[in-house]
């Protein structure tokens, strides 16, 4: 099999066995990107071969010089990091994100040409990118999901060995589901946010997008951990997540929330997820219905809190120190015109909504109320996790929709986050793994949720399911 088809752990073995070098791998990947990215548009600002960091000279490092692809909102020193937004055109951060430093220290080769995303991570389809949408490798007319659509598509199309994405309301898991790959959102505070260009500070996390569960655990070992530069990162020991890759779910108690199987969800997706649950039962897991009564309030709560924080985090984009600046007579004009020209539609919409819910007279009715409902949502999960080891849901109510289908209906777009959003609100960990295909041949995703700092159970259940099925071995016809 061609090198670019292999998983990270398979490539590590190849290098260990001297069957290939890291240079071979980089070449193979580069050829692959050149061959197909014009169709997929997973990478942005790509001209010819992707740029990359200097390969590590350490032959025995964990990651052996294997390339990793990075979402455009994670800072890489002296290399363009633009959040796929015009307002950050040309921005080169003078520092590396903490996770980038950790990856480099583990011997990774960082691809400096970044992967596509919805501008500032605002979106569920990667259609909000100023570089145009990425195309789903399983059906190029369909979206990849978002906002980490570029990373998910690259991994699915074997244009990336593995990748980093970010997740605020499902932005790793939903594109992973749409593209038939694995995506994990760590517990809030598990992975440092230093160097992640912030969308919603109390919800954001960086996480891996990979071809299989083992690769995901391998990356999680490296990127997790306390960072003194991030006041919200937690000093909790990082276990060896690969130790959790055990093929056994006997006796594991899994809760299935009734509110997550709504009317209007795609029948095919529903069936695949139910089949998956059946398989886990057959493997010895105990699956029971549970209730998360405040589920229907998650999307409105999210869109208040996330937009409020986003409006605040995006206030700094004003043309003064970096990025786009328009010609103007005075400073206020400069601010207004720069932000008009630099922000796309969705960004404007969210900044304005976020500013509104924080403004004088509306703060109590919207923002404060949303914070209180957030407490209720968290309490729902606390109750369930007191009895159950994990929770299983579909990742998304649908499979990948057509490019252009939802873009003019923001509310409809927001509702596609319905299963992933609560996880961020409650600070939990969650993984999405492929669990089959719809009749149209589009991937369906299974989401597993765990209580904070219990990624181990995610890896155990996900690995078991994966080893007893073959979805992860199927590739799009590319």
């Amino acid at each position: 099999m061609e090198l670019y088809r292999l998983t990270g752990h398979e490539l590590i073995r190849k290098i260990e066995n001297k069957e290939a070098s890291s240079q071979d791998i980089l070449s193979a990947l580069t050829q692959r990107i050149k061959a197909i990215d014009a169709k997929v548009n997973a990478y942005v600002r790509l001209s010819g071969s992707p740029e990359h960091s200097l390969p590590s000279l350490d032959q025995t490092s964990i990651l052996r010089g294997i390339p990793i692809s990075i979402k455009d909102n994670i800072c890489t020193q002296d290399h363009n990091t633009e959040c796929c937004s015009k307002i950050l055109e040309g921005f080169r951060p003078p520092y590396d994100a903490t996770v980038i430093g950790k990856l480099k220290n583990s011997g990774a080769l960082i691809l400096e040409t970044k992967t596509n995303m919805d501008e500032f991570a605002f979106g569920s389809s990667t259609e909000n990118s100023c570089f145009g949408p990425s195309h789903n490798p399983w059906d190029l007319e369909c979206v990849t999901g978002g906002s980490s659509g570029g990373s998910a598509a690259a991994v699915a199309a074997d244009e990336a060995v593995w990748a980093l994405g970010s997740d605020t309301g499902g932005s790793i898991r939903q594109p992973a589901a749409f593209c038939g790959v694995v995506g994990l959102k760590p517990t809030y505070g598990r992975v440092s946010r230093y160097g992640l260009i912030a969308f919603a500070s109390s919800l954001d996390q960086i996480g891996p997008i990979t071809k299989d569960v083992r690769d995901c655990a391998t990356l999680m070992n490296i990127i997790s951990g306390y960072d003194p530069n991030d006041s919200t990162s937690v000093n909790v020991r990082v276990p060896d997540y690969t130790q959790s890759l055990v093929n056994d779910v006997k006796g594991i108690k899994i809760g299935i929330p009734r509110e997550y199987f709504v009317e209007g969800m795609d029948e095919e997706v529903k069936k695949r997820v139910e089949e998956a649950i059946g398989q886990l039962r057959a493997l010895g897991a105990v699956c029971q219905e549970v209730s998360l009564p405040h589920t229907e309030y998650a999307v409105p709560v999210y869109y208040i809190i996330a937009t409020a924080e986003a409006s605040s985090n995006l206030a700094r984009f004003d043309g003064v120190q970096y990025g786009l600046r328009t010609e103007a007579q005075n400073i206020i004009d400069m601010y207004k015109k720069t932000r008009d020209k630099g922000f796309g539609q969705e960004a404007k919409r969210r900044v304005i909504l976020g500013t509104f819910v924080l403004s004088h007279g509306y703060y109590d009715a919207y923002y404060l109320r949303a914070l209180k409902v957030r407490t209720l949502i968290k309490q729902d999960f606390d109750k369930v996790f007191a009895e159950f080891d994990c929770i299983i849901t579909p990742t998304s109510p649908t499979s990948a929709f057509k490019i252009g289908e939802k873009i003019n209906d923001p509310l409809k777009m927001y509702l596609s986050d319905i299963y992933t959003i609560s996880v961020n609100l409650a600070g939990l960990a969650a993984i999405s793994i492929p669990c089959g295909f719809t009749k149209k041949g589009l991937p369906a995703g299974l989401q597993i949720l765990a209580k904070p700092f219990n990624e181990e159970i995610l890896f155990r259940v996900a690995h078991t399911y994966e080893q007893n099925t073959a979805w992860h071995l199927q590739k799009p016809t590319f």
Partner: protein
Amino acid sequence: MSLNKDTIKQVAHLSRIHLKPAELEMLSGQLKDILDFIDKLKKLDVANISPTSHILAINNVFREDVPKNSLPADKALENAPVKQGKFFGVPKIIE
């Protein structure tokens, strides 16, 4: 709760974003729909619920008063659209 055009204009000013009339029109409609949807939160009784500002139960995260390397001025100014010497330049402010 409706977000009428005047409110949106005010909020756009607070956000320092210039909106063209067509945008204002479109946003008006879209934000109204979104707010109507969000209003379902009003159904809940949250009188005795405390707000969650921080999902983690951590406190007192500090650093020591020990100097760390700063950026060289050139590096700090590298991305500046307009600079003069070692300063960032902006259109003249009249106070």
